[in-house]
């Protein structure tokens, strides 16, 4: 008999959701975390969208360690000296069941893991899984860095993050293409609550999330700034190959963003309380590994489930959705006595019939479009250039027509009309 029915590696959102659902189904579950507490190794670029928690933890918003509820969302397009912002706010996101929230991952992940523990899962921290136990192709357990640290299980669920050494060991990732990954760097800047309320026009526990395009120089990527209770987080997401070739270090690129005339006044006086970095699986559906093997499932960042689709930037919710599906599937397979890849095949079906793979498949071309040279280098200049021409009063000359402004900006940025149209159609098809 195995030591556990299910072993989950990594107590991030995917792992804790998997452990929670497997434990609730009556499984003997072990949740292994290499950090001293769940979330210790984790940072992220933004916002947790909590609706996936509705089905897992009723009234989760009453106990989750939330910094601020996002009721204001801005999308900012920048050039070196210009900024055009689309700003949306709604009061409906400020009351249950809410929409997005800012939270510190060491707090949020620890809270989610505590729910798995309450459901009966055994959480073991400060323990690194160094490899898998195998019987032929079949995964039968894990090897840890503890003395006598081998543990057996009928199913191992790998939620071991973006580097997923376990998925690689099983051969589910054929190779690591750096162009599928970005580096996220971030600073948490302390600011008094009153200053945040005044600068960002939010009250109480409401907050703002700003996403930015055109602030990463010659490296494809984007920027973000969002409000916590008594701090703001500002950061960049940078495509790995171009970052490595560009000669400018990540924190130097972040320093440039902080000096931008549209950003500097928002963060003035903010003292850095923590600098952090993490790699992000950026390419979505097209980079996903096989998700199932004999006695083995993959979920979360380990399965590249971050959705980096420009206007939608999500990840924690996909990890929770996939983890919960993996936990339920594993439990069902253990009960039926068939934990082979065939016995676990329901995992993929569950994901395909939920947002996890439905959204990813639908938006599979979006990461490529968002990171293209056109979207990154030319679109921000054209948009900001047009805005400046439209709003500049050129008396005594009469106002130029809108089409004339568009043509002149396309020409100035060496963008062919046919090129622009074909990219526009492709984007429309992807986001339809």
């Amino acid at each position, binding site marked *: 008999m195995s030591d556990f029915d299910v072993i989950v590696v990594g107590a991030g959102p995917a792992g804790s959701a998997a452990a929670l659902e497997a434990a609730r189904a009556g499984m003997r579950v072990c949740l292994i975390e290499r950090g001293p507490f769940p979330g210790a190794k984790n940072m992220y670029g933004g916002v947790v969208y909590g609706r996936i928690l509705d089905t897992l933890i009723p009234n989760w918003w009453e106990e989750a360690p939330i910094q601020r509820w996002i009721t204001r969302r801005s999308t900012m397009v920048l050039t070196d000296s210009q900024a055009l912002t689309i700003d949306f706010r709604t009061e409906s996101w400020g009351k249950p069941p809410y929409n997005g929230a800012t939270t510190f991952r060491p707090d949020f992940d620890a809270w989610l893991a505590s729910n798995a523990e309450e459901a009966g899962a055994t959480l073991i921290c400060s*323990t690194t899984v160094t490899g898998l136990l195998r019987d032929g192709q079949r995964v039968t357990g894990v090897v840890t860095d503890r003395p006598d640290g081998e543990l057996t299980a009928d199913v191992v669920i790998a939620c071991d993050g973006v580097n997923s*050494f376990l998925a690689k060991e099983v051969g589910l990732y054929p190779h690591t293409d750096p162009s599928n990954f970005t580096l996220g760097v971030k600073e948490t800047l302390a600011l008094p609550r009153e200053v945040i309320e005044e600068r960002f026009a939010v009250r109480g526990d409401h907050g703002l999330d700003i996403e930015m395009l055109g602030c990463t120089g010659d490296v494809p990527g984007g920027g973000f700034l969002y409000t916590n209770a008594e701090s703001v987080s500002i950061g960049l997401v940078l495509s790995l190959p171009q970052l490595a070739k560009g000669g400018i270090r990540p*924190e130097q690129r972040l*320093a440039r963003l902080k000096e931008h005339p549209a950003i500097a006044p928002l963060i*003035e006086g903010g003292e850095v309380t923590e600098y952090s*970095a993490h790699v992000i699986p950026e390419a979505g559906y097209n980079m996903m590994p096989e998700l199932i093997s004999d006695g083995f499932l993959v979920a979360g960042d380990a399965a590249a489930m971050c959705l980096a689709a420009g206007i939608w930037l999500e990840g924690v919710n996909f990890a929770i959705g996939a983890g919960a599906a993996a936990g339920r599937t594993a439990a069902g397979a253990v009960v039926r006595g068939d934990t082979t890849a065939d016995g676990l095949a329901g995992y993929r079906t569950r994901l395909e019939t939920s947002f996890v793979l439905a959204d990813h498949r639908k938006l599979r071309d979006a990461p490529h479009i968002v990171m293209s040279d056109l979207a990154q280098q030319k679109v921000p200049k054209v948009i900001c250039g047009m805005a400046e021409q439209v709003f500049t009063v050129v008396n005594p000359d009469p106002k130029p027509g809108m089409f004339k402004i568009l043509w002149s900006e396309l020409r100035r940025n060496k963008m062919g009309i046919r090129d622009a149209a074909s990219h526009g159609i492709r984007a429309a098809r992807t986001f339809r």
Partner: protein
Amino acid sequence: MSATNSSTNGPSDQRSRTSDPAGDMPTSRTVEASGRYAEMSFEARMDTVEFRVHERAHIVVDGRKCVDCSVRGCITACPANLFVPTADGGILFNYEQCFECGTCYMVCNEEGAISWSYPEGGHGVVFHAS
């Protein structure tokens, strides 16, 4: 939340460097005439992060391969600035203040020059406000 920079070197065949042997990291920062904070020193930046350093280096660099590398992406891309070039064409590295992100091996141009694994359980970076 101070960084625990024990000046532990890796095994002697690796060219580790200690991050700050004197332990006198600058933590104060200058205020410009405009009243805005000047960008902080890199040491002060890393001093905001907690690292529980283990004696075993979880990054191993094969310096012979780095000599032939024309790209040296690790030097630019590592967010913790753990890789620095040496005069003789090699690369010095430090594992102690590592975010464990994986950027270095992903951008590495020379097959197998950077061997990378997770630190021992309970060790390495510990985030609190990210």
